[in-house]
């Protein structure tokens, strides 16, 4: 049932500092709202628990995208449209441009933010697997200061993250270190781009001759959270793509990925289907490396 909007409070603190002080004074009382493309849907179907919201959408100091000592730093309020319009992202981090272009349709991309996608922490979210393969770090801000974590350590479980109730995501930072890497991403959904994915795989790899020198894989919907597929990476590092060993490499990759897949069954798909499709996507990526 639709919620009664008069039961909800929303205000827009004048400054980021003021917002952080409010969060620190009563941790857990307030829910931050950025583009609202998750929270307003929850409101619509009567599932928005928090009655007190604070808007951070107007903080321009969280909406930026800049190059800094060989890294790109992206503010939490950056929208998917901002990401798609950035020449820096298009040139250096094409997988992020691609995942942004899949995060709902244009109207959704104009509002939805990278910070909201990360904190909502859906296992099916489109952008976290890309941040994982690109080796991102994440900076959190609170009244007591900033801390930076390896993004790989941020997601703890189903919709559970390291974010404390008094913190906001400030930015993510990605090394500009992937020139010469082969890059791959594919999302499988019901209505391709617009639908929430049933499964998605992102990968980057560096080859030396016919050998895989380095490979990183990130997946959505393969477990209860966005993950790096470390077992498959390990099985494939150093593996040969030469014609006479390709089949063995594909088998090793598929088997390792199957071991770490613990997909959930939900309304969008079954675990068996997800696992099988993820293996097929990995095979597609590996075959493209062999070409």
């Amino acid at each position: 049932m639709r919620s009664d909007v008069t039961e909800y409070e929303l205000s827009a603190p004048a400054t980021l500092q003021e917002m952080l002080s409010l969060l620190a004074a009563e941790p857990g009382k307030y829910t931050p709202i950025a583009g609202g493309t998750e929270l307003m849907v929850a409101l619509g179907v009567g599932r928005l628990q928090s009655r007190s919201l604070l808007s951070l959408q107007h903080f321009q100091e969280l909406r930026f995208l800049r190059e800094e000592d060989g890294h790109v730093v992206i503010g939490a309020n950056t929208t998917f449209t901002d990401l798609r319009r950035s020449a820096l992202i298009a040139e250096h981090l094409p997988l992020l441009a691609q995942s942004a272009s899949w995060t709902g349709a244009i109207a959704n991309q104009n509002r939805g933010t990278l910070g909201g996608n990360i904190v909502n922490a859906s296992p099916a979210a489109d952008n976290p697997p890309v941040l994982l393969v690109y080796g991102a770090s994440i900076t959190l801000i609170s009244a007591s200061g900033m801390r930076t974590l390896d993004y790989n350590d941020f997601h703890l479980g189903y919709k559970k993250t390291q974010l404390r109730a008094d913190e906001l995501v400030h930015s993510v930072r990605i090394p500009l270190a992937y020139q010469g890497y082969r890059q791959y991403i594919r999302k499988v959904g019901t209505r391709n781009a617009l639908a929430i994915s049933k499964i998605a795989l992102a990968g980057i790899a560096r080859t030396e001759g016919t050998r895989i020198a380095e490979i990183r894989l990130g997946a959505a919907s393969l477990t209860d959270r966005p993950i790096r597929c470390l077992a498959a990476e390990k099985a494939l590092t150093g593996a040969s793509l030469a014609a006479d060993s390709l089949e063995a490499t594909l088998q090793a990759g598929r088997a390792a990925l199957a071991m770490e897949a613990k997909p959930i069954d939900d309304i969008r798909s079954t675990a068996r289907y997800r696992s099988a499709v993820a293996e097929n996507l990995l095979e597609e990526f590996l075959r493209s490396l062999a070409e």
Partner: protein
Amino acid sequence: MSKVQFLLNGQQQSVEVPPMKRLLDVLREDLRLTGTKEGCGEGECGACAVLMNGELVNSCLIPALQAEGTRLCTIEGVSTDGHLHPIQQCFLERGGAQCGICTPGMILATHQLLDKYPNPTMEQIQEGLGGNLCRCTGYMRIFESVQEAAALNPLAGK
């Protein structure tokens, strides 16, 4: 209640509303502009689309307070001096509108599309209108209306 002010179709507006009230309801109930439609109420259909600071957004997902200080354009603001905008004219002539529920959103999505790509390819049209669902036309007539509007280049000189 919060006081929220914005520029709507070129006119300054001020409303006193619950801050979490959906912009869609503010437009339809408080400002009596019923051109903006509600389909799904969940961001999936685009019937409620408006332009906010020139960008297409779904008004069912925007709390009133976040419209503060913005520039909004609804379907009522697309025509000028009682004359249909060329995009509207093309939808009318090419059968791009049947029951009309999706039409305001389709027209605003087309507006943003042609702003960005004055000569869109079929792929760009499909992406630009990808968040707008239509239960009547089967889409082909809508795409043809958009192509026709692009050929007339309604936004040239803007």
